[in-house]
């Protein structure tokens, strides 16, 4: 066992981990931040996406020990300071960007990473960026719409395919 210390959603967090402990396991089991979901556990579905030092990673495919000293952001830290939903979360609600909600934490974290680098993405940019996020309800259309809306773009023109 080794001690790891990281910043999670702006607060210092530490704990004991084994070499094999995944970042997703550390967040969920040790820190009790269960908003980060584990869907496939094979780095395909993207439900476990968090940000490590500002970039999106699949936390089920990164060792907790590798995040020692890192700045980690999870879905729990996304809301505004007053507890209200942030722009992306609100857009998901407004545009029905979730059905069962299982993939939503990963979708929101991927969307946040996209909009940080590309504040006005095209619809195809959004779809391409979400290649590694799978929605088993197949609700992609409204997810894309929500992200476009969160970027401040008019989504009236996006028709269902």
């Amino acid at each position: 066992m080794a001690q790891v210390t990281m910043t999670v959603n702006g607060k210092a967090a530490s704990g004991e981990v084994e070499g094999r402990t995944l970042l997703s396991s550390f967040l969920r089991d040790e820190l009790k931040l269960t908003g980060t979901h584990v869907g496939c556990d094979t780095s395909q579905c993207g439900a476990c996406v968090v940000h490590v030092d500002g970039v999106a990673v699949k936390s089920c495919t990164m060792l907790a020990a590798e995040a020692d000293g890192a700045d980690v952001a999870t879905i729990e830290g996304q809301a505004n300071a007053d507890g209200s939903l942030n722009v992306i979360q609100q857009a998901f609600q407004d545009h029905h960007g979730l059905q069962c909600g299982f993939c939503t934490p990963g979708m929101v974290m991927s969307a946040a990473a996209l909009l940080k680098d590309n504040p006005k993405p095209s619809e195809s940019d959004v779809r391409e960026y979400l290649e590694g996020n799978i929605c088993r309800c197949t609700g992609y259309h409204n997810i894309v719409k929500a992200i476009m809306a969160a970027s401040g773009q008019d989504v009236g023109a996006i028709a269902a395919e």
Partner: protein
Amino acid sequence: MYNFEFAKPSSVADAVAALGDEDAQALGGGQTLIPTLKQRLASPTKLVSLKGISEMQGVCTGDDGALCIGGATSHATVAAEAGAYPALASTAAHIGDPAVRNRGTIGGSLANNDPSACYPAAALGSGATIVTNSREIAADDYFQGMFTTALDEGEIITEVRFPVPEAANYQKFVQPASRFALVGVFVAKYADGVRVAITGASNDGVFRWAEAEAALSANFSANAIDGLSLSGDDMINDLHGTGAYRAHLCAVMTKRAVAAAS
């Protein structure tokens, strides 16, 4: 996943020392190795992360004009910073998905030599030099079959040097579930000839298509390879496509790559 010890050295020398332990294994971005460990297909006693070694990070241009990429550089960094070699940057920009590209490394991909990975095609197609902690290996000598390379136990890819071609392009026919190449063709035109490297197709891993190289060196246009074909007999035959289908795709994707490069 079986448990293991974790080490994160900050220099190549320390990493080499750490890898001296029996059953120690190097860890790049882990995007293949961690899933492999989860399936218990490997059981190292110690993982040595190469991500903390600053001398193995980043993209720069060497004195001879070659693009030099640190072995622990992520695909996302290559996509963003290898602008001097656009076809290479574009290849990196289409590996896996964005989160995978933020972790996966060029050294990890080349050391693993997955028969359907993109970077082996780019390295072989560019005649790159694989630089390790102990020697320099020409790409033509480096790839030795599916998941097999010239690397010795404990040898680390510290840098990869790509000579920048006059024109190049990579065309990947994506296997839609995995995003790996069902067939991927990297074509690069240098002053002394054209190189064509194909991934995803052969049971022996990435390979050069000599006949297409000769035809394209004489005439760098897509129709120069009309009439040329590869046999599907020794190609990967799986539920995603037969060997014959992959052989057909090799020619199709080569033409597309030439058309896009010229």
